[in-house]
């Protein structure tokens, strides 16, 4: 120190060090202890002597920061007092001048140190919050599993218990359930029920009937009225659930957890109900995740446009988020979910998150499948038995020749839907897990009007939905 520490400052620091030790004794956090010790190397008064003997951490970062703010105020008040006293002197002596300069210099350094300490507290707090997010997902999954088990053992019924054939449709990134709803209206058969589970939490009910030779999709105002319909009472038709994720770009694990919770509430997570999953784009990954988590309940998966491998465009959107935002995408949209895999993360205002973009940028679906294969081979065997169809959309393009010697004519098939490669959509990396790999020509005209956005409405894909629903029936 290039200045002498005055008694006034010493008195203040005495109370601060004592307070810091008592806070740390209560918090019992090694990270906080280290942060305070580092700061005290600059404070150079007393010592941080708390030990970590307890087993429970208890701290409130807001309280901690307001305590440090109070310390800053103490020091600033001391400086102000010194300044007032100094200015009141007509002819200050050298000692008085020196004392004033010492206090000003000391307080300036100490305030900077305390501000830095507040920054460290924020950082630690964020780290704790991120860690909580990482561990919350498996905890929630476990609780849902317990709830499913409880329902099954105690025969707890939900509103839709008794429906044997259930189709669940899951959209991809930046999407809603509207596209699937239109396709399902076409694919649904007489006697079926369509249920929309919307992002805002509302539910819509529709019944499918034939009236005057025409298929009718009639909205039923609510569940109370649905119960009176013949379609609900008979339960012989299929229940189609158009599921809209709570956050449009949430990670597949979040979707799987939410969906399991909702289907369990509806009374559909039992051995009598078989679920056929349909997914478009990232919705296919979400569907496969659900099947991995609940293989006993899923009978089949049908996807189109799904990047089972990592995806170049998602990597771009995840890395250059502002550019993605320019064209209306929302790569920062996320839920509370945070993946264990640190590569499958990005940050927003200091908060770490994992979502569909980080997932497709960092993890091919083989990673989790390989983990599953070694950790739980029985589940892997169930996935092998499951009917999995990974359809691929592709486009046809005019053949252009750059040769001066001949003119090409006609059209050729391109190897992607402009967004995801056919190879990735067909799930080639998943090997024999995929049973069928149909390829469907879709509309579109190139990168600015990609085939990917035409897949859900494609007639051939709607026919595939119809076919799958017809085949997967008990």
């Amino acid at each position, binding site marked *: 120190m290039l200045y002498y520490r005055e008694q006034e400052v010493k008195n203040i620091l005495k109370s601060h060090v004592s307070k810091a030790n008592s806070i740390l004794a209560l918090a019992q956090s090694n990270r906080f202890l280290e942060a305070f010790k580092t700061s005290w190397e600059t404070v150079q008064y007393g010592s941080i002597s708390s030990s970590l003997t307890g087993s429970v951490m208890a701290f409130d970062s807001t309280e901690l920061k307001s305590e440090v703010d109070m310390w800053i105020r103490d020091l600033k008040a001391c400086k102000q007092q010194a300044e007032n006293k100094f200015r009141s002197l007509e002819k200050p002596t050298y000692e008085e001048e020196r004392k004033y300069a010492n206090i000003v210099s000391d307080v300036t350094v100490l305030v900077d140190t305390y501000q830095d300490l507040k920054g460290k507290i924020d950082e630690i707090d964020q780290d704790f919050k991120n860690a909580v997010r990482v561990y919350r997902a498996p905890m929630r999954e476990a609780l849902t599993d317990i709830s499913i088990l409880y329902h099954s053992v105690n025969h707890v019924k939900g509103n839709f218990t008794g429906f044997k054939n259930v189709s669940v449709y899951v*959209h*991809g*990134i*930046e*999407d*809603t359930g*509207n*596209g699937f*709803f*239109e396709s399902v*209206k076409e694919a649904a058969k*007489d*006697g079926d029920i369509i249920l929309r589970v*919307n992002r*805002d939490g*509302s539910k*819509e009910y*529709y*019944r499918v*009937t*034939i*009236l*005057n*030779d*025409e298929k*009718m*999709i*009639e*909205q*039923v*105002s*609510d569940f*109370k*009225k649905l119960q*009176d*319909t*013949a*379609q609900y*009472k*008979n339960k012989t038709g299929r229940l189609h659930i158009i599921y809209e994720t709570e956050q*449009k770009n949430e990670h597949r694990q979040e979707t799987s957890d939410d969906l399991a919770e909702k289907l369990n509430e509806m009374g559909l997570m039992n051995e009598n109900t078989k679920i056929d999953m349909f997914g478009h*784009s990232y919705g296919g990954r979400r569907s496969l995740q659900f099947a991995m988590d609940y293989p006993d309940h899923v009978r089949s998966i049908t996807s189109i446009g799904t990047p089972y491998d990592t995806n170049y*465009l998602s990597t771009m959107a995840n890395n250059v988020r502002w550019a993605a935002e320019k*064209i*209306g*995408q929302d790569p920062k949209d996320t839920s509370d979910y945070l993946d264990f895999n640190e590569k499958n993360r990005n940050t927003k205002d200091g908060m770490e998150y994992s979502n569909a973009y980080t997932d497709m940028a960092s993890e091919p679906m083989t990673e989790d499948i390989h983990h599953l294969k070694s950790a739980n081979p029985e589940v892997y065997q169930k996935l092998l038995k499951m009917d999995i169809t990974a359809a691929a959309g592709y486009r046809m393009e005019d053949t252009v020749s750059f040769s001066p010697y001949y003119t090409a004519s006609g059209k050729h098939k391109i190897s992607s839907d402009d*967004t995801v490669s056919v190879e990735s959509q067909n799930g080639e990396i998943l090997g024999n897990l995929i049973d069928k790999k149909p390829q469907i020509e879709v509309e579109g005209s190139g990168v*600015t*009007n*990609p085939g*990917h*956005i*035409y897949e*859900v*409405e494609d007639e051939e894909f709607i026919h595939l939905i119809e076919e799958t629903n017809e085949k997967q029936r008990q």
Partner: protein
Amino acid sequence: MLKKQIIILSLFLIIMLLTAGCKDQSSTVYEKGFPKDSPALMEFMKYYFTDYNDKYLLRNDHTNVFSRGANGQQDIQFYQYTDAQLKDYYQPLMKEKNQKKLLHDLKQSESLEKSLHHSVKNIEKYDLPSIKMKPDLQLNIKTKENEKKLDLPSLLREYGVKKTDETEINIEAVNQKSFALFIQDYSIEDPVNRTIGIFLTNDLQHIETTILNKDKLQQSVSSGKLKRFYDLFPKIASSERYLLLFDHMIVDQKTNQLIDIKKEDYLSIDGKYVYVNGAKDKLADGTQRIQTIEDYAEGKEKYDKQFDIDYQAIAKELGLKENGPSIAKVNYFGEDFVVLSLNYRGKLVGSAGFTNVMIDLSKKGNTANLVDLGIQSKIK
């Protein structure tokens, strides 16, 4: 100098006036938000708040009367509300920011039964029959003039109706002389032959039945057995030549033929108009044409109403970064009101946004209101 400036200013004003004058009269102006109230909007709301098994029956002195179908062993019920009550019910939508949520809440049966659907105490006032469904499909019918038990399995044996069948039954039409019932028998395997119409005089002495598909109804119409009951059904053209039966069938009284509405055309809810190409899987934008049922039936190329829809202009108004509409459908078509649903594709992935487009044709100038009400299916 001043003279030159006046000349320039005058020329500028003339150009402005000419430009305004040349503007396409049919071009539509798009406005975000819920439309202003009008009788056409009220009519739409009437149908929106009608449930799948409800049937709008009649209007008497500003009071609208509906029947509610019976499923299984229930009675057919009747409810009513006045125009003013309906208006009060949906009026909060005019001020609400989240209209989609409010409309969804207003559609809930608990809310409707509590605040709008008031049961009809005196059914005789409107010549409504009392109909009670008893076990084994026995129908107890009581009118002002008579009382009778109808044994449906025996009456409808030729159509394969059995006493254990799962049915829904409702009143389709009623007046001082007769009434018609509409039965859906879900136990009949072939859905085309599942819908049955029963026509009764109020003295319950004359009963006619028919299957309600195009072929069978045509046979019944041709045989002349339903003529006695034609008064029950609304005449939907100025010439009184055409009748609307069971919401979808148009009968030409002159030829005794059913009018064929093409698959791609959309019949208005009152049967009076046809929205040409309005039932296509994807509605094309540009000029939209509406014909009267008379002109349509006679194959004339005469259009009663026209308006423009421009998908790009709508997207621009909503500030969407889109790649064209993936969904473009008509959800409601009344005499003066059209509701469309539009969903836009995203630039590279997903959707850019959804909106309903509400066009009130009763108002001067073509204004379309853009508001997301979450309406994506046909309003009956």
